[in-house]
């Protein structure tokens, strides 16, 4: 889950490449000159150039580099963000990378706060004071050690040049801003609930074949993809006009041309559309083979229905479709029929699978191609609607009213209630939306 440390460090290493990396220079901080620094503008420009991205994206990425502590600002150190101007920044030393020293230790934090406290009275800000006091209580037994370490580190740093001292202080401060963020600042290290992870193993990949089918599929469906090509009369999410959904609903009397066309793409497309299924049934009735589709549908209900109803449903299917002399007898090959009849004695969810598959492929290879060539289909395709594009509103800034639709839960409940002839408890109105 911390893979981002690997990818981010790749970027940081690229940035510090001696040939292709960033050009660093001395930056003046008040009266001190800090070496190996760069400006925010330099960082953004380098990212744009190296990764061929826009300024917006470069700034977005640059901000993460700062927020995750791989680059820190020399001015306004508490404000961990990337400014696209002359503001100076520096690369964080790998010693303080979140991948190297994680999790941050309480002891180290105590020493850091103690140093700040000793160095300058009142340098600790409010939340730091609270942390300091809390730590003092919690690890009181080692407090002498903490103070001693703090004093020692301060003494050692006083012997450094001012520029180095400033750099070291900034580095340390940046590290702690990330690992102990002040209240109100987003904790960038939050990862969500713990996951168990497994050790790294790499597998070599090899390219594949038969890839032309993807090109073909995308081409075939391109005109049907609303996000890519738009849709007629208009996309409801853009114009607030729900015509598109009304014209393509399950119960529409005359479907759109695109919809009818799509039935010819595959047998599954025809079956997945309730209207398509209805049309197919009409066609099969003319051919006296409607029982095939009905049988297929009944098998689906067994496969996806409640476990408790399986036995009863299988029995129904047997009586209607498989029993000798059944009213809607389906023509399955003798071997499959034998196997199925045997299996029915101990009915389970998948007992009709073989028979269902046989009938499915029968319809797919035989009835379906003939349906597509039939007058029934061709007439429907000819009569199918091509919607007019929604005219742009005269007042483009006036938003259409967004109408509610009846909840699917209501539709079924009403049907249930009607069946039971009981007054519906729900009084949800199609025109109003319930507010919570």
């Amino acid at each position, binding site marked *: 889950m911390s893979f981002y440390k690997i990818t981010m460090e790749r970027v940081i290493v690229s940035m510090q490449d001696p040939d292709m990396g960033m050009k660093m220079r001395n930056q003046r901080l008040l009266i001190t000159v800090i070496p190996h620094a760069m400006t925010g503008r330099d960082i953004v420009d380098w990212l744009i150039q190296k990764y061929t991205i826009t300024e917006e994206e470069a700034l977005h*990425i640059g901000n993460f580099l700062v927020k995750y502590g791989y680059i820190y600002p020399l001015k306004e150190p508490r404000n961990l963000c990337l400014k696209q101007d002359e503001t100076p920044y520096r690369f964080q030393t790998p010693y303080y990378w979140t991948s190297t020293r994680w999790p941050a230790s309480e002891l180290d934090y105590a020493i850091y706060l103690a140093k700040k406290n000793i160095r300058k009275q009142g340098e600790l800000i409010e939340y730091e004071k609270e942390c300091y006091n809390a730590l003092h209580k919690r690890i009181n037994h080692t407090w002498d050690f903490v103070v001693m370490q703090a004093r020692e580190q301060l003494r050692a740093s006083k012997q450094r040049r001012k520029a180095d001292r400033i750099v070291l202080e900034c580095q340390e401060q940046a590290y702690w801003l990330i690992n102990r963020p002040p209240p109100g600042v987003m904790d960038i290290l939050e990862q969500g609930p713990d996951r168990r992870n497994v050790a*790294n193993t790499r597998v070599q990949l090899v390219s594949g074949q038969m890839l032309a089918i993807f090109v073909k599929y*995308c081409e075939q469906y391109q005109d*049907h993809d609303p996000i890519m090509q738009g849709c007629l009369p208009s996309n409801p999410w853009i114009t607030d006009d729900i015509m598109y959904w009304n014209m393509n609903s399950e119960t529409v009397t005359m479907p759109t041309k695109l919809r009818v066309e799509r039935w010819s793409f595959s047998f599954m497309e025809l079956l997945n559309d309730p209207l398509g299924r209805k049309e197919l049934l009409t066609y099969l009735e003319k051919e006296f083979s409607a029982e095939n589709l009905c049988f297929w549908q009944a098998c689906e209900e067994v496969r996806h229905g409640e476990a408790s109803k399986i036995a009863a449903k299988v029995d129904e299917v047997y009586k209607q479709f498989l029993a000798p002399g059944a009213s809607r007898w389906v023509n399955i090959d003798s071997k499959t029929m034998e196997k199925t009849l045997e299996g029915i004695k101990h009915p389970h969810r998948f007992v009709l699978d073989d028979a269902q598959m046989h009938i499915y492929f029968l319809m797919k290879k035989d009835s379906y191609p003939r349906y597509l060539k039939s007058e029934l289909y061709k007439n429907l395709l000819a009569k199918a609607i091509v919607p007019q594009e929604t005219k742009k509103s005269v007042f483009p800034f006036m938003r259409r009213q967004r109408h509610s639709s009846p909840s699917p839960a209501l539709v079924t409940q009403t049907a249930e209630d009607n069946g039971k002839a009981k007054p519906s408890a729900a009084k949800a109105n199609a025109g109003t939306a319930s507010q919570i």
Partner: protein
Amino acid sequence: NFCVIFITFEGFLSRAGEANFPLAKMAAQEVQPSETIAKLKSESEALKTKLEEERAKLHDVELHQVAEKVDPLGQFVMKTRRTLKGHGNKVLCMDWCKDKRRIVSSSQDGKVIVWDAFTTNKEHAVTMPCTWVMACAYAPSGCAVACGGLDNKCSVYPLSLDKNENLAAKKKSVAMHTNYLSACSFTNSDMQILTSSGDGTCALWDVESGQLLQSFHGHAADVLCLDLAPSETGNTFVSGGCDKKANVWDMRSGQCIQSFETHESDINSVRYYPSGDAFASGSDDATCRLYDLRADREVAIYSKESIIFGASSVDFSLSGRLLFGGYNDYTINVWDVLKGTRVSILFGHENRVSTLRVSPDGTAFCSGSWDHTLRVRE
């Protein structure tokens, strides 16, 4: 060298024996008890030749090479059309209703909300007895939702329109795992639910009785995601996990029939290509990949050196030409599936994008984020 060749060919032949390998399937179907020995012999010779030919083809082209002649895509302008505000904490998961406009979303604070995304009205709200509700799903009928997370369960709530009715009272506890629930999905009906869990397994449940119908073992670590195949026979699904593997399962037998291991870190999201011939994955290794099921291998990688953070959630546009990826750096990258290039980058969210789904009719897609909001974009 001889040994290596032998093993490779052996391995290849044994793979050919698997039911999903097309030539083997063909062979299994053709053989009838009534055929003569001679005819079988010649068929077997023909099969051997074909195997050699196919094997030679295996080191062929990659998807973007096949797609070289395809017209490149133009500029895409996708704007946020709706912003859904109401969750009090990180949004972790969302799912569309089949009516193409309603959605269900779940969040870290235990709230599950059903919205009419078109009007942005909230229609139902449930408070779960646990935090981090990482999974939610809409029932195909539109009459119920399923959800779960750190409670290790998947529960189904029928959606009642009676404002006075407490939805929590009618709750049905369906799935029980021994670690967090990471994903759930209804199968073709309201009656069965497929779940994946931090306990390393997936499972299929009967909603009515809560009975475990089938369990799927094979991942070596937490399973994070799953997706059902849109195939004709509707019998398989794919799962992705912290073991960097994407596994394809047979729902009937519980067997893992294919396994893919090319990612370098956790797989957060898997989604089938609309035809069912492939699936895409999004991972913490900052890449998305496409795996071809018939070729049994990875055929495309969607990545850029400047993309540092993991992809949390992926989905295809209706035609399969575009792949939308929600990332942990708050952005959504839109990929040209065929050419492997990035078409667009979308900003807007102010924290991680944790979930992303294209609507059932492909008119828009919705993203949910740790910034507490959901956005519908076209």
